[in-house]
């Protein structure tokens, strides 16, 4: 089972839930929020190995190039421009798709590689922990997420800690998941972005359930929405000052007895909801 934790809205507690669930379920943890991977702050994995994520970018051989601009026209990402003298490349916009070289009738385009991020792997108290880290200034996270999720073993159980939102970053992670858990908060923003996440999950056809985090006892916004739409609401993680303090110190909520119980109950529900064993 590969369970993706997503939210729509940022800051609802994806990483908090994901790291605590990974320990409770004794399964692997993958931090797919490569723009701001925070899971390792809580997991502190040991013996971390790192491997760069490399992407292709085109190089033009001007002894062959006729400046016909077919490569520029072929590029769907506007990463190329042609002047009367040369082809200009904007590396950050290049998706490495090779369309430019397919379009080039002169065979003038070859490819070189550059690093856009790194994938790190280690172990944390008996569980496997991995994350992708996008290099600062790079706009495209998907190559790093794909590289990270290549490490997934088909036999292993894993928690995939997804990026916020419902963009390519979230979609790429969902493509590797068997089921999803939406973590939301009982606010209007939480509900609004949850609705978008639900739409995405229905579109990709993944089974999913939901959970309210940071509850102060008034969750009708979310419970009514879930009831109306037949969404399996697994439960509620309460807000508390103690939890906030533990979080701010990079500690697991499992260190607090009442949260440990809550996570054990949640793990059980997840296994039942997704027939996971």
């Amino acid at each position, binding site marked *: 089972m590969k369970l993706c934790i997503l939210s729509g809205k940022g800051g609802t507690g994806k990483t908090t839930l994901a790291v605590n669930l990974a320990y409770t379920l004794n399964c692997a943890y993958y931090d797919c929020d490569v723009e701001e991977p925070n899971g390792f702050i809580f997991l502190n994995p040991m013996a971390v190995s790192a491997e760069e994520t490399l992407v292709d970018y085109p190089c033009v051989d001007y002894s062959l190039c006729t400046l016909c601009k077919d490569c*520029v026209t072929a590029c769907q*990402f*506007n*990463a*190329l*421009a*042609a*002047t*009367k*003298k*040369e082809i*200009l490349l*904007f590396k950050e*916009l290049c998706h490495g798709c090779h369309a430019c070289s397919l379009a080039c009738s002169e065979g003038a385009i070859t490819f070189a590689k550059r690093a856009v991020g790194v994938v790190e792997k280690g172990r944390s108290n008996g569980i496997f922990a991995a994350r992708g880290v996008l290099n600062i200034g790079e*706009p495209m996270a998907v190559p790093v997420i794909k590289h990270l999720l290549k490490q997934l073993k088909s036999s292993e159980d894993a928690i995939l800690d997804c990026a916020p939102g419902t963009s390519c970053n979230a979609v790429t992670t969902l493509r590797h998941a068997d089921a999803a858990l939406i973590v939301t908060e009982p606010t209007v923003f939480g509900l609004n972005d949850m609705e978008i996440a639900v739409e995405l999950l229905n579109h990709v056809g993944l089974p999913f359930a939901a959970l309210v985090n940071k509850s102060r006892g008034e969750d009708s916004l979310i419970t009514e929405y879930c009831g109306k739409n037949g969404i399996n609401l697994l439960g509620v993680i309460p807000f508390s000052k103690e939890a906030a303090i533990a979080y701010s110190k990079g500690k697991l909520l499992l260190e607090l007895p009442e949260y440990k119980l809550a996570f054990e109950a949640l793990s059980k529900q997840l296994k039942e909801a997704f027939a996971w064993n």
Partner: protein
Amino acid sequence: MIAISSTGNTESALSDPRFGRCEYFALYEPKTETYTFIENKAQSASGGAGIAASQQIIDLGAEVVLTGNLGPNAYNVLKGAGIRAFRTSAVLVSEAVELYKAGRLSPLDEAGDAHAGMRKGFRGGFENK
């Protein structure tokens, strides 16, 4: 030929302070003192709008661009193509041309911020500097 980023397809339209995502380019031919207008094909690009708009300007054969701001990518494409750019405020297209002809526009000789036109439009509207 002079290309002006424009909000409309007449010479009495306001010039557009955004380059990559303006709606139209007004093309002014000094020899005949006439305007033609073409849609900016890059205006709804998901990324690289400045680059694609610059390519369009190159392909149209303009020698001069009048606009409010050029991001780093658009700046580099136009510079690479030897096209000169001048800064306009939000005046009419025809006024921008008159100001240029009178030598009263300053050259855009460095790139502005990326996505400058999105700062207030996408998240609240363009702010004239």
